[in-house]
């Protein structure tokens, strides 16, 4: 090995406080190959909303950066390596620990084991760290491992045919994919959804509806099915106002106006639910215009706060990819959400004859704390009637 190892200096995660066990790298100020002066800031780390600059312990050339931004590592972990000014070639000498050789810096905490020794130790279930080596400089030799294998008690489970599989070392997933931290939006959605599932007693009721009338109407109007369903839904809510409601703690509020939330996918960026306030006052055309406008502005990040608040009922409409059923999560603190999936032509029986009709499955998730299944079924029956009589 080259002598450059002794010249190398590690930049480690500093001890930022007695109670601090780890820190997150938030920014690198240098890159590999940069020359740094002693005390120059090489990176910044964060813990408990405190950012701390990490200075270089000595002058040198950055030979390696071992921790990426947003990675959290324990105090003392090596963040980067600095080579001596002679241009130490630390990188070339570094061999992955998997391959058998462990970088030694300073005292020999890590020992070198030959491949033979490692293989025998693995076969015999011998922990190499516990063996006193008899070789030069305390190196563990083959004989040492075999002797240790003779004397050690077999592990209790080793003869049992029922022994549990050893927990696999986390598979090296990184070979085939990559790990990223969830975006802020994803975490917010996650928190909102989890809160709903922890709060509501969610049930889902399905009903089949014949969308032939809607299909004909939309062919005429040039609109999508969604505004037609939204309009029918508003009418059904007028008949069953208990579903146009919010439940916060024990306060159950039935609302006079329908503030209709429409889930809008932002593609990879997530999902937002803009709200059409007083949707009961709008026609199918009016609803179509508002939905289009809200969706466009949601995707452009131009919604105002009021446009995402105050919803009393939500429709989600992921059906364009052909899925036929889903169990939507209620948008808290509302008590119900309607899921509209694909409209598919199917053979159906009408008056004892088989006909081809455009069918869909309407899914209503509702909160069993606020209402019972019969109301959900009645609402779906009304909605279905409205959809089938669209002109």
């Amino acid at each position, binding site marked *: 090995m080259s002598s450059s190892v002794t010249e190398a200096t590690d930049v480690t995660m500093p001890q*930022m*406080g*007695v*109670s*601090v066990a780890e820190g997150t790298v*938030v*920014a690198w100020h240098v890159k590999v190959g940069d020359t740094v002066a002693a*005390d120059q*800031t090489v990176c*910044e780390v*964060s*813990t*408990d*909303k*405190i*950012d*701390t*600059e990490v*200075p270089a312990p000595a002058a040198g050339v950055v030979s390696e950066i071992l921790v990426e931004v947003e990675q959290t590592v324990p105090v003392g972990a090596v963040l980067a390596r600095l080579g001596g000014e002679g241009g130490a070639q630390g990188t070339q000498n570094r061999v992955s620990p998997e391959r058998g050789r462990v970088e030694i810096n300073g005292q020999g905490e890590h020992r070198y084991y030959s491949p033979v020794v490692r293989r025998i130790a693995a076969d015999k279930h011998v922990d190499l760290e516990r063996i006193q080596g008899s070789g030069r400089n305390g190196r563990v030799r083959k004989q040492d491992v075999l002797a240790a294998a003779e004397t050690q008690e077999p592990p209790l489970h080793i003869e049992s045919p029922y022994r549990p599989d050893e927990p696999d070392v986390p598979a090296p997933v990184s070979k085939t994919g990559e790990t990223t931290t969830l*975006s*802020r*939006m994803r*975490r*917010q959605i996650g*928190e*909102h959804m989890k*809160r709903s599932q922890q709060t509501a007693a969610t049930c889902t009721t399905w009903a089949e509806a014949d969308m032939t009338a809607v299909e004909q109407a939309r062919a005429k109007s040039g609109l999508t099915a969604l505004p037609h369903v939204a309009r029918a839904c508003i009418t059904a809510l007028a008949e069953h106002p208990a579903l146009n409601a919010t439940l916060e703690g024990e306060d159950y509020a039935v609302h006079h106006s329908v503030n209709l939330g429409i889930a809008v996918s932002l593609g990879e*960026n*997530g999902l*937002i639910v803009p709200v059409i306030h007083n949707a009961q006052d709008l026609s199918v055309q009016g609803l179509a215009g508002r939905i289009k406008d809200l969706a466009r502005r949601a995707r452009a*990040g*131009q*919604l*105002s*706060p009021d446009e*995402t608040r105050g919803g009393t009922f939500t429709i989600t409409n992921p059906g364009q990819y052909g899925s036929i059923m889903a169990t939507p999560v209620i948008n808290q603190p509302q008590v119900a959400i309607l899921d509209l999936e694909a409209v598919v032509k199917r053979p159906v029986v009408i008056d004892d004859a088989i006909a081809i009709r455009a069918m869909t499955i309407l899914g209503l998730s509702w909160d069993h704390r606020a209402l019972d299944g019969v109301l959900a079924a009645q609402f779906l029956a009304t909605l279905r009637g409205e959809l089938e009589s669209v002109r």
Partner: protein
Amino acid sequence: MTELWVCHAGLLDYREALALQQRLCAARQDGLIPDTMLLLEHPAVVTRGRRAAPEDLPFGEAWLAERGVDVVDVNRGGKLTYHGPGQLVGYPIVAVDDVVAYVRLLERALISALAEQGVSAHARVEDGPDYTGVWVEDRKIASIGVHVSRGVATHGFAVNVDNDMAPWTWFTACGLPSVQMTSVAAELTGPDPDCMDCFAKRAGHAVAKELGARQRLVTPARLESALNAVPA
């Protein structure tokens, strides 16, 4: 007993205050001034740390600008926060060794200053780092964010005293979507026109006490001359 210089700087633009902090920090690092704390208010501004995500600011800069709110990107950690008139901002430029202990110290100081003002507040250490700050029940009244460079802290704390609370709902504060913010005025009944002056004095006193230092009030002019005396 060591001294903590405390400077009541009034209403100061965020960028100007940042430049002042950086000069104070450099002087403190070189041991040319004692520990110093700025107490001030900012005109309405959302500051965006390095770790803020675009969706934390869902309504966009133009929308905020229409409402008189400036957006400033800062070279600090953390996410988004809001400052505005009626919020007391404290920037202690002090030497620290244990940064977590320092944050806990700031929390204790603010809790005791709030108690004197009649607001019973607490810290939420057990809830984890995202909950750093001071809370009244589960409502957040004060935010804390610190940057340490060569052993000297910059940035600090912000306490909602009698500010307009609406801007807090215009973005995701501190990366916690569900946090409700509160203020001294909202927690106390009855209007108190001297609320801010009074609380600023209490905060200065409380931070000095927790640091084990004697508070010495310095004027902005005095601070400026001390900085100018520092050889460049």
